[in-house]
């Protein structure tokens, strides 16, 4: 993996303005982050710490209140640059379109020719294991399959930076592990940089090259943990001793922050 910076957050803060008599909310930062080209980076932290806000700012879906965001040396400021794809926690598959039309949606918008759309959609659906369900509607699929539709929709656009906001949050533990394997395969084959937002420490430890542990709101990076995994990895690493050390270290950092987020100031001994 190269150490070339693919995306950068510089002194980024995000403050949500006051709404209906409620005070402004300082959700994030200031934070600095360098995403290296081709790496798998995860952000973990307690609920409401600003993880998703961080992703929104990086994607250009929200402008930072202070600081700068860079993607491939171009400034991002509340506009989504070319080359970024995102998969959200919520089911974002369009219920009025079939699986294959969902996958082809972004390509049709971009005016890609029909043969190329066919090729990319076939590949993406094969990759996420939905080829047999190409003509089905999302309502006919399970939650995990619908999330795979969203991954296929992102994959066909061939993004260089893939942002994933708790994409497996609604899935059971076994399916999450298998989806994690799929995600690693996707990352290896595309060579894209991946930023995963997750609350699951084991998921982050299994998938990532580096993990940024975030404090309770306003979210700041407490520490970045290097996992040292080889690129050719999968969920079988859960059996290893190192895996336990990484999740243990993450939990050590996040325990008091999670208690703080739950309102137990000062923590428990």
């Amino acid at each position: 993996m190269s150490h070339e910076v693919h995306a950068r957050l510089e002194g980024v803060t995000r403050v949500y303005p006051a709404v209906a008599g409620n005070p402004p909310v300082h959700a994030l930062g200031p934070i600095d982050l360098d995403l290296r080209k081709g790496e798998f980076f995860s952000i973990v932290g307690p609920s409401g710490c600003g993880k998703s806000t961080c992703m929104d700012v990086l994607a250009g879906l929200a402008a930072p209140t202070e600081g700068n965001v860079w993607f491939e040396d171009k400034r991002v400021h509340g506009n989504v640059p070319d080359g970024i794809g995102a998969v959200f926690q919520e089911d974002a598959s369009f219920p009025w379109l079939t699986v294959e039309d969902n996958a082809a949606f972004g390509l049709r918008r971009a005016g890609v020719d029909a043969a190329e759309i066919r090729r990319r959609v076939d590949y993406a659906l094969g990759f996420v294991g939905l080829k047999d369900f190409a003509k089905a509607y999302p309502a006919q699929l399970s939650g995990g399959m619908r999330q795979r539709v969203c991954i296929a929709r992102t994959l066909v656009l061939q993004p260089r930076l893939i942002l994933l906001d708790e994409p497996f949050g609604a899935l059971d533990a076994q399916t999450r592990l298998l989806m994690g394997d799929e995600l690693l395969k996707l990352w290896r084959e595309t060579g894209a940089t991946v930023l995963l937002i997750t609350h699951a420490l084991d998921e982050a430890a299994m998938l990532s090259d580096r993990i940024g542990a975030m404090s309770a709101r306003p979210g700041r990076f407490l520490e970045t943990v290097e996992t040292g995994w080889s690129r050719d990895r999968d969920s079988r690493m859960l059996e290893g001793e190192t895996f336990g050390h990484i999740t243990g270290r993450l939990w050590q950092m996040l325990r008091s922050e999670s208690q703080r987020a739950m309102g137990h100031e000062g923590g428990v001994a």
Partner: protein
Amino acid sequence: MAGTQTAYSRKDHERAERLRYFGDVALVIVGIVVVWQILHMLAGDVAISSPLATAIRAGELLGSASFWPHAAETAKALVYALIIALLIGIGVGTWLGAHKLSGAVAEPILVALYSLPKITLYPLILLVFGLGIEAKIAFGAIHGVIPVTIFTMNAVKNINRVFLRSARVMKLTAMQTATRILLPATMPEIVSGLRVGFSLTLLGVVIGELFSSHRGMGFLVMRAIGLHDVSTMMAVTLILAVAAVAISSILLYIDNRLHRRV
């Protein structure tokens, strides 16, 4: 094998469901005819014609050349009124749904207008549009526009925000977001609004024809009342009711299909 069995049992289940549905519909129709016949026997020909006599008279009307220009007039007014109600309802509803403050201000006003007896506005409509088809169209559209607006407004207000975020990530323009995301995402609710709006628009058009028209199905009913031609009066009403139920059923079918996907 198991998959095939599941597919067959699902098909059998769907067939059984459909049969039960048509059985229920047939039962309701038979029930209506029985009650109608009893009322006819109690009130006599002078007030209510029998189901058979009404059906025969309806057949005669449908076979006569003089009936169809009236039916066409009503259909024309209904189609125009529905188009106006849809265009205004979808446009205004989308704006009110997208703009929080406007929606919050307009919603109670729309609900109040919805419950207002719109017949009180008819003299005003006549003054503005005169006695022609325009008045019927306007009166029909006034009835249909409010439900379409309310349903569209709520659909836009409650649209799944992640669709709009996805649209931004895929760099859709505002027009593409409106036509490819907003419209299909809100379509099930718009069709529900259209279904309610259709019944009310038809009501508005026929009421318009009852009071100030020389053509149309409503006019035929009024002329039959004037001549005390009970069977014609009831036959025209029956034809209107059958047409309305048929169109409503089609809209309900589309509505159910669209909602099944959500």
